[in-house]
């Protein structure tokens, strides 16, 4: 079970409380996680990655296991600790002006 922590604004938009748990088949990647999030919560389409270019929005970052994964390729497999659910994938908004 993949655990995803979303920023508060997106939790509010999608009416989510707490972490999101996703059951995904390998390989688990940033792309497959965001695909699953958008499938379950259609309102999140375009909020994490751009609607048109499908690239990560510039003020959002991906972290897991104490590492910044933001600049990994979208199809790079996520760390095993994320795949196993030991560690969550953190989707974090940049702290830029509050």
């Amino acid at each position, binding site marked *: 079970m993949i655990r995803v922590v979303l*920023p508060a604004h997106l939790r509010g*938009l999608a009416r989510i409380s707490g972490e999101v748990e996703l059951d995904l088949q390998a390989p688990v990647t940033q792309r497959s996680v965001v695909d699953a999030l958008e499938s379950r*919560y259609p309102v999140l389409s*375009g*909020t994490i990655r751009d*609607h*048109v270019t499908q690239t990560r*929005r510039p*003020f959002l970052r991906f972290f897991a296991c104490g590492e910044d994964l933001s600049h990994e390729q979208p199809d790079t497999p996520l760390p095993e600790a994320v795949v196993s659910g030991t560690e969550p994938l953190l989707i974090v908004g940049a702290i830029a002006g509050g």
Partner: protein
Amino acid sequence: MMPLQYRSSRAGILGSPRWGGQMSNVRVLVGTRKGAFILTSDGKREHWDVSGPHFAGWEIYHLKGSPVDPNRLYASQSSGWFGQVIQRSSDGGKTWETPGGEVMPKPDAPPAGKSNKFAYDTSAVTGKPLTTHQWYDGTQHPWEFNRVWHLEPSLTDPDHVYAGVEDAALFRTTDGAHTWQEVAGVRGHGTGPMWQPGAGGLCLHTIILDAKNPKRMFIAISAAGAFRTDDGGTTWRPINRGLRSPYIPDPNAEIGHCVHHIAMHPNRPGVLYMQKHWDVMRSENAGDSWEEVSGNLPSDFGFVIDVHAHEPETIYVVPIKSDGEHFVPDGKLRVYRSRTGGNQWEALTKGLPQADCYVNVLRDAMAVDSLEKCGVYFGTSGGQVYASADAGDTWSAIVRDLPAVLSVEVQTLP
């Protein structure tokens, strides 16, 4: 007596007039930097209920109701972090949905609709955007979608809405905001490479529909100018003759003027009023030419301009000190009213702070109701929403401490 019409703010026309003594209600839709607020009162406009914040923490650039179905509201919810969402209400703002869901979910269930995709039209040949625009440094820059600045519901169909966006383009939905398509003729008419962003970005912020001529529409872009279509949006042309902007390379250029807002009385669609970056302007011929009517204003810089609901020659502006000092002159918040369509202006101060006030009033933050005594409303960067129930003679604050106000619209309801 000239027949009066129900007006749901700047350009909307509906049915018959609403008189203060006939149990009318007023609903003020306020967009702020950190959410939306809905203020309601009866026709006396003395006591107000405040609902909100809706979409707390998000920038709400604009909300507006359908003139056909006033309980159908649309809201532009955006964030520099998370992009653009369009929200829709079918009950006057009590509940909201993201359009496109098959079934209206329970209040605590995730919304079923998608956020909204605004994809610029591209060339069928190259697959690339139709044009580039000028960047601040004069180089050409591709169009990049940032947000919806203004939503303008159709005068005849509650599912039909226009959206003015940044980077400047016009979009249209015909399915209640589920899907949006670009009105490509705006960017495609040829002057796009000369448009450049103003301080707030390259935004299409004003959309005026002509109730007497459904094929005619006006838009304004900062900093490009004003444009008009006479064929329902297929073709467009600049309407900037007479505008003079000494701070651009060619002060009399056809393109490049920073138009801040345009207003029109729905019963007299040939007459337009404009608050430009500097200068208040008037056109008698649907924008074919403009003349300055700044007259005795203490400053002719400003953002808002609006027209009295029943007196097409009575207009309102809020002078701002300068383009570098975005606050009211002399620490005094003054609305200026002209009963002569410009040139002769009177300061309206009763009930407004006249010392130590340094707020701004942004371009979409003024509106009028259509009660017998026309109500005038505006919101400030300090979070106050002021109302006058007597066409500007006296003012009071409905609320004082909202987040910075981005937009104000008014609905006069049965």
